[in-house]
């Protein structure tokens, strides 16, 4: 079923901070205020809320309604980490389409204190607590090191290939005022950086921070009445715990559903003007290029060598700098690519891509439960005039 009658609008980012003494609730409030200011809507007009956060404890999404004085008739808490943005979009779009809500605020926010990342990874999941975290206490760095090690030996990727992605994202970040890592990065800087978990070096690893990302999903006619630029949804997918028999994760759930994604959108990989992958570590971007059909399985390294990932390049990618340069604000990391994609399609990006077809792809990946990420999702979006 298509997403007729649904508009996606008002992409906002609450500028990130490396550490924050504010709460997740504070960051959510800031994001909501930016959504109201950007749309001209009043708080009582927000009748749907999709919320993602790791640091609300002991609150839950419904606690936030009382904390911030909201009275939605539709509420969803989406605990899918890096896939939460696309999944919130899907859920909210269907709610708007069916009339269960008119305007859904999709908000992801997390705070970050010096000790909070350790406490998050220590008890991230039962399997992590029982069977991966006690093995070195390195959290996702170790998990992605193992994925990267396997991928490099199986498909011939080199440190330079991953470095190219990190370097080009840093160049994109230089035009993004809120990115936390602005210092120019060269391939030599990347290769010379200290080792974190072999084969990963410092600039392969996302930096935890505090921040918030948000957008609105609303009825198309409302967006037009309000006169706010908006995008449309051409197709979406999500998949959880795919390929559980694979010894080491070298493909994500996208490859189960990519054909369905492209056919539902009625376009192909060559029609996209940009791609925003989930990028806490470069290897996972390479898997997304392959699994979403931009190249074949194992062709990621050659694909990276063949393309220029800047906004003026042959394959504009993670145009705000991605998480590797802007930081990972918990669940907001799962909304960052979608919010940046919406900025590109609504003419609000500080680092704009030249739109030919007015189409972009955004993908998410999340929740290293034990040895691999369980959630994958993707959406193809278009600017409203196309």
């Amino acid at each position: 079923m298509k997403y007729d009658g649904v508009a996606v609008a008002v992409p906002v980012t609450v500028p990130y901070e490396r550490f924050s003494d504010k709460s997740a609730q504070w960051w959510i409030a800031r994001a909501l205020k930016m959504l109201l200011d950007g749309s001209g809507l009043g708080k009582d007009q927000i009748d749907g809320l999709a919320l993602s956060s790791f640091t609300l404890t002991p609150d839950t999404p419904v606690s936030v309604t009382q904390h911030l004085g909201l009275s939605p008739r539709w509420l969803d808490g989406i605990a899918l980490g890096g896939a939460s943005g696309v999944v919130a979009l899907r859920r909210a779009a269907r709610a708007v389409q069916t009339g269960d809500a008119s305007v859904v605020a999709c908000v992801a926010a997390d705070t970050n204190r010096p000790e909070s990342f350790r406490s998050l990874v220590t008890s991230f999941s039962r399997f992590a607590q029982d069977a991966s975290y006690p093995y070195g206490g390195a959290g996702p760095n170790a998990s992605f090191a193992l994925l990267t090690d396997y991928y490099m030996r199986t498909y011939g990727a080199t440190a330079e290939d991953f470095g190219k992605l990190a370097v080009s994202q840093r160049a994109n970040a230089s035009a993004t005022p809120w990115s936390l890592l602005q210092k120019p990065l060269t391939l030599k800087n990347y290769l010379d950086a200290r080792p974190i978990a072999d084969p990963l070096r410092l600039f392969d690893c996302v930096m935890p921070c505090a921040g918030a990302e948000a957008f609105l999903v609303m009825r198309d006619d409302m967006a037009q009445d309000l006169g706010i630029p908006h995008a449309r949804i051409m197709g979406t997918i999500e998949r959880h715990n795919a390929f559980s028999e694979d010894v080491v994760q070298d493909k994500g759930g996208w490859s189960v559903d990519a054909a369905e994604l492209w056919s539902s959108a009625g376009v192909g990989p060559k029609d996209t003007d940009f791609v925003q992958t989930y990028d806490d570590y470069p290897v996972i971007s390479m898997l997304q290029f392959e699994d979403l059909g931009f190249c074949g399985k194992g062709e990621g390294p050659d694909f990276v060598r063949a393309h220029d990932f800047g906004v003026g390049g042959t394959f504009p990618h993670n145009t705000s700098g991605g998480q590797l340069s802007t930081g990972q604000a918990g669940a907001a990391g799962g909304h960052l690519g979608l919010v940046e994609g919406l900025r590109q399609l609504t003419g609000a990006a500080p680092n704009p891509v030249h739109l030919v077809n007015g189409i972009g792809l955004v993908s998410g990946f999340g929740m290293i439960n034990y040895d691999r990420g369980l959630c994958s999702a993707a959406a193809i979006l278009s600017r409203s005039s196309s």
Partner: protein
Amino acid sequence: MTTLSDSRPPHARSAAAAGLIRGAATGRFILQRCQDCSNVQYPPRDACHNCLGTELAWEDVDRQGLLSAKTTIQASNEPYFQKRLPWTVGIVASAEGPSIVAHLLPGCVAGEPVVMDLRLDAAGRGVVVAQPATTHLGSLAANSRPLEDDFFQDPKNKRLLVTDGCSTLGHFVIAGLLSRGVTTVTAGCPGSDGICPEHEQSDRVNWVRVATDYAWPSEEWYLAAQLPNPKGTGDGHAFDAVFDTTA
């Protein structure tokens, strides 16, 4: 609460993971096998992920596997590992099927066969440790951990503590240790009267009363048990190994 996080790795485990401690106590490589469909699974679960059966038994399974991926950790969130870096772990494709994250003893090479054991780590928990199936000379990295001594393996002639000897897990662990020729085990009894019927079973068990409102390895726990506190006394070797069997 006092934490000894610089002297022990992460300690929290689910109840299902207790079978790993049993394996470490008995010297057997046991994993969960579904009694309905025979599927072997890891990490430990409360139901079979193949058929959803809930009759799961810890059974001896094949120790062999292939090392599929390896990393040498150079930065850890945990003080215990921070003092012992670099630390090497990997993913083993076990002959039984599941992928198993394991500590790697020196000499493990990615793509090569390894054999796995269940051993006790410094937190009193059972962990999977892999070593090369065949020795590879020249593949031993200098300074790298873990080493054999980072885990407890052979219980003979060792001073052993079982934190709760009256729990189901404690019974298994004590029986397992005694069956391996251990001369004495010190075991905690959280029972209020201090006399459980099972206490009679062997004069090789030295029972001590423990308080249930303190968790091992807090100073209060050692004080209540009237055992030398490794932190307070500065004697970190009151016991060679502690099996934390408290539910």
